[in-house]
C-alpha cells in the first residue's frame, strides 16, 4: 500500500508516539488522572430511550443521564459526555476515548474478558410482550409467531437462543423502528424492555400488548478499562452508597416505573 521507507517511518512514528502513550496509561491511574484533569469523560448513547435520549428541547434525559449526573456530583468533577452507540462502547473504552461507560452496559462474560465493570447499579429486564388473548407462558408457546426485536441487543440474543423451530424473528435497526413496527400493528409480539411496551401501547390503543413472560434480567454496571483498581474500588463504593440511600432506586423508578430488581440490591449489600 505504501512505499517501504514511508511505512518504516510510519511505524517508527507509531512506536515513538505509542511509548509515551503506554506510560501515560499506567501512571497515574485513571482515578488520579480524572481528578488531576478535573473532568471525567463518560460515554453514553442518547438514542436509547428511556435510558438515554433527548427531550423536547434536545437536552439529554433518561435514567443513564441522571445516573451519570449523580456520579459526577459525587466525584466532584465536571462531566464530559462522549457520544457512543451500543456497538462501539468497548472500542471507545479500550482506545482511551472515554474514562467510563454509563450506557446500559450489560455485564457479560464476553465483555469481562476485555474490560472491567463496577458492581451492577441497575438491571434491564428482557421480556416478551404479546396479545392478551393468547396464552403464552414461555418460549415453547412462541412457535409459529412473528416476534419483533431490535437487532444485536441482549433481547435479540436471548430470543434467538430461546425460540422453538418455526418462530419468525423480525429484526429492526433501533428501538424507535421496532416500536413503530409494533405500534402500527405489523407485528404483534415484541421482545424488549418493559419500559418500551408503554411506548407501544400509547400508540396502539385498539389492541394493546401485555408482558407475557420475562426471558431474563440483565444487570448492568459502569464499564471501565482493566487494571484500574483505584477507579473500580471508587465506583463499587459509589454504587453501594447510592443503592443503600435509595438514590439509584429513585432514578430507576422515575424512568422505568419499577424498583431495582433483587439481584442488584443483593450485589450492593454483599
Amino acid at each position, binding site marked *: *500500500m505504501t*512505499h517501504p521507507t514511508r511505512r518504516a517511518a510510519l511505524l517508527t*512514528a*507509531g*512506536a515513538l*508516539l*505509542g*511509548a*509515551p*502513550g*503506554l506510560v501515560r496509561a499506567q501512571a497515574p491511574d485513571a482515578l488520579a488522572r480524572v481528578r488531576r484533569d478535573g473532568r471525567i469523560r463518560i460515554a453514553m448513547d*442518547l*438514542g*436509547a*430511550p*428511556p435510558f438515554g*435520549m*433527548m*427531550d*423536547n*428541547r*434536545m437536552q439529554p434525559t433518561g435514567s443513564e443521564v441522571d445516573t451519570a449526573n449523580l456520579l459526577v456530583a459525587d466525584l466532584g468533577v465536571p462531566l464530559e459526555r*462522549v*457520544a*457512543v*452507540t451500543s*456497538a*462501539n462502547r468497548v*472500542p*471507545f473504552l*479500550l*482506545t*482511551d*476515548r472515554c474514562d467510563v461507560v454509563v450506557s446500559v452496559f450489560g455485564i457479560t462474560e464476553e465483555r469481562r474478558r476485555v474490560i472491567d465493570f463496577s458492581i451492577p447499579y441497575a438491571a434491564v429486564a428482557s421480556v416478551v410482550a404479546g396479545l392478551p388473548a393468547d396464552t403464552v407462558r414461555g418460549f415453547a408457546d412462541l412457535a409459529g409467531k412473528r416476534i419483533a426485536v431490535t437487532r444485536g441487543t441482549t433481547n435479540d440474543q436471548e430470543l434467538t437462543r430461546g425460540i422453538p423451530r418455526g418462530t419468525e424473528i423480525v429484526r429492526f435497526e*433501533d*428501538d*424507535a*423502528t421496532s*416500536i*413503530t413496527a409494533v*405500534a402500527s400493528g405489523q407485528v404483534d409480539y415484541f421482545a424488549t424492555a418493559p419500559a418500551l411496551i408503554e*411506548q407501544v401501547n400509547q*400508540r396502539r390503543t385498539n389492541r394493546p400488548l401485555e408482558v407475557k413472560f420475562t426471558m431474563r434480567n440483565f444487570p448492568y454496571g459502569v464499564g471501565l478499562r482493566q487494571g484500574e483498581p483505584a477507579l473500580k474500588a471508587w465506583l463499587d463504593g459509589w454504587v453501594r452508597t447510592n443503592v443503600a440511600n435509595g438514590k439509584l432506586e429513585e432514578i430507576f423508578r422515575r*424512568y422505568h416505573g419499577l424498583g431495582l430488581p433483587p439481584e442488584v440490591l443483593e450485589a450492593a449489600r454483599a
Partner: protein
Amino acid sequence: MTGEFNLFHAGYLLQGAVWTLLLAVIAILGGGVLGLVVAIGRVARPWPVRLLAGAYVQVIQGTPLLILMFIAFFGLSILGITLPALVAAGVALVLYSAAFLGEIWRGCFQAVPQAQHEAGAALGLRPFAILRLIVLPQAVRIAVPPTVGFLVQVVKNTSIASIVGFTELARAGQIVNNATFQPFLCFTIVAGIYFLLCYPLSCWARALERRLVPA
C-alpha cells in the same frame, strides 16, 4: 416522555447537516487533490510509480469505507496516535475518494484516442502542449458525469462516520427519531436535507457539461 417533532429537533438535524457538509467538503477537496496524484501515478512513465498507484487503488477500493474509518479512528489509537473523530473520518474519506477519483480520471484520460496524441505530435506540438491543448480538454469533458456521480455518493457515505462517534445527519436523524418516535416525518426530513446537499452538485455538473461541450 417523548414529544412531538418541534423546532429544537429540526435545529438538531440542521446541526448534523452542517457536519455532513463539512465532511463532504473535506472528502471532495482532499480526495480531489490526492486523486489527481493517483491518476497521474497510474499513467506515469516509471513502472514503480504505476505499480504503487495501482496497488493503492486496489487496496483502498477493496476495503470497505467502514473499515478504513475503524482503522483511522480505533486502529491508530492502539499505536498511540489519537485522532479526533473529525480528522479520522476526514482522513478515511479522503483516502477512499482519492482511490475512486484517481481511477475515474485515469480512465477518462485514457479514453481519449491515441490518434489525438499522434495528431498533436504531427502538428509539431511539444508533449506538454499536447496534454494541455488536446488531451486534457477532451478528458475533462468525459470525466464530469462519473466524477459528479461519485461525489454525490461521497456526500451520502459520510453517514458512515457515525461509527466513530460523529453525529452527522444520519446519526442526528436516528437520535431525533428515538426522541420523537416519528420515523416517517423524521427520516423524510433527513432525506430532504441529503437531497438539498446533493442536488446542487448535479445542477453544477449539468452546467459544466453544457459549458464544456462545444456548441
